[in-house]
């Protein structure tokens, strides 16, 4: 029999949770070694479409080992509540971020034209604008350019109004997108009323209780 004295010599903790007791965990050891630096995954940024024809809007990042897993995490994290008709995912390092300005200075007004035109053939870039600090970036549209920097300048020509304070540029090819065939992913949630606030109506019970105690 193989024994593990280092574990056996430690007292297992006793919990009110039977699942924890079944695990027979060793006692807490505060001298645990630190996690290795950056052993976590790459980061991806997630955009979410709340309903058909609504613009895709930034909802937050996920950590994942590749973009397929990033998509799965994104679906769980950002679309398990309320409605969703689509998700886009991009690697954080694939997003060009303009400088941040403020409401007094629209970012398009301070953009500088790239000194050199982009090299190579033109391709599609997706443009996301932040209208106001503290809000979320929203998809403004697509431009064609030969580099992300050039795409930023083309966005100025295409979308300069209304004003915004920051712009993200992503090569269209670098976005993993759900398609028409993926929409059934979100069709299963309609009957899950137990996780919606509207499904809990307590006033009837309270009023019945009060009427009973007063009579």
């Amino acid at each position, binding site marked *: 029999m193989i024994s593990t004295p280092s574990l056996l010599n430690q007292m297992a903790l006793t919990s009110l949770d039977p699942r924890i007791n079944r695990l027979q965990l060793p006692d807490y050891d505060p001298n645990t070694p630190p996690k290795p630096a*950056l052993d*976590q995954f790459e*980061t991806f940024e997630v955009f979410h479409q709340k309903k058909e024809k609504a613009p895709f809007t930034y909802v*937050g990042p996920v950590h994942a*080992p590749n973009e397929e897993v990033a998509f799965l995490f994104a679906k769980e994290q950002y679309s398990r509540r309320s409605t969703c008709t689509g998700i886009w995912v991009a690697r954080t390092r694939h997003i060009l971020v303009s400088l941040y300005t403020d409401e007094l200075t629209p970012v398009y007004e301070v953009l500088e034209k790239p000194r050199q035109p982009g090299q190579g053939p033109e391709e599609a870039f997706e443009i996301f604008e932040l209208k106001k*600090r*503290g809000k979320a970036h929203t998809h403004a549209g697509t431009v064609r350019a030969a580099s992300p920097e050039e795409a930023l300048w083309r966005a100025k020509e295409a979308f300069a109004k209304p004003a915004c304070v920051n712009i993200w540029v992503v090569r269209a090819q670098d976005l993993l997108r759900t398609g028409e065939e993926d929409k059934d992913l979100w069709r299963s949630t309609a009957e899950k009323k137990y996780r919606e606030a509207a499904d809990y109506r307590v006033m009837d019970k309270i009023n019945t209780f009060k009427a009973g105690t007063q009579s």
Partner: protein
Amino acid sequence: MYGGGNIFEAPRPDELAAEDPVRLAEFEARIERGEKIEPNDWMPALYRRQLIRMIEQHAHSEIIGALPEGTWITRAPGFRRKLAQMAKVQDEVGHGQLLYSAAETLGKTREQMLTDLITGKSKYSNVFNYPAPTWADSNIISWLIDAGAIVNQLANAKGSYGPYCRALERICVEESFHLKYGHDAVVHLATGSPRQRQMVQEALNRWWPPIMMFFGPPDKLSVHTEILMKWKVKMATNDDMRQQFLDMYVPKIWELGLTLPDPNLRKNDDGVWEYTEPDWAEFKRVINGDGPCNAERLAVRQAAEEQGAWVREALQSRSQGTYVKPLA
């Protein structure tokens, strides 16, 4: 859930004097105008440090706070309540993910935060160092601890740091389900059989002192609040939030015929609630590791880290890229 009663660090002497006065003035003017600070903006070191501390504590509270309620998933009465309890616990862990990401934008990696949690260097909300011995305890947490958290989070959602505000906006939407679910569960017990009423009353008696501690020490014992409120890191004082909570929830508790274990609890004519101060020495003792569940909570996190390491390593071996700080 679960942010509340954050413990802030004392500013270092002359720390602000070392900052660039022009940039500091621009930073403060931006906040004064009601604009948010975004990750790439210049910010004083103290602002960055206190925000990391606050958001990290909040994130830890979400994942540790899932443990006492997770305890009751398998024993929740009925399939529907099991599903709802599971959905709630899933939300809490999801909130942890949102908040860790917001803290990462300030420059602290997730690994550092998890290491600091497991080694006890970083704190989490003190209420989760108390046990949930019955189903009614879990319901009291779902209703009243979440209610306290919503008071705190709605205030902080109006704060100055963009990524934290965005995360809180999302969290608060999901919290509305938790609050209703918890209230419904407590009402079910309170309007049920004498045994059910007794169970929920006893749970309320157990949880009332930790609930009163949830918002942190009284203002007269809290230091460093002024600069944090000026920078909109902290949006309301501990006492203000406690008063708001009492005003909103004590009447709802009393209308169920339940009592609270504080003979001095009453609302004065001026609208201010009087109450007996909880045992702040106990608060300090528990937050420093000597609570009934501190060791268990951290042992479970420690085991999860250790037992999940091989999964992370296996996935990482197929990873195509390296970590980059999230954008917003």
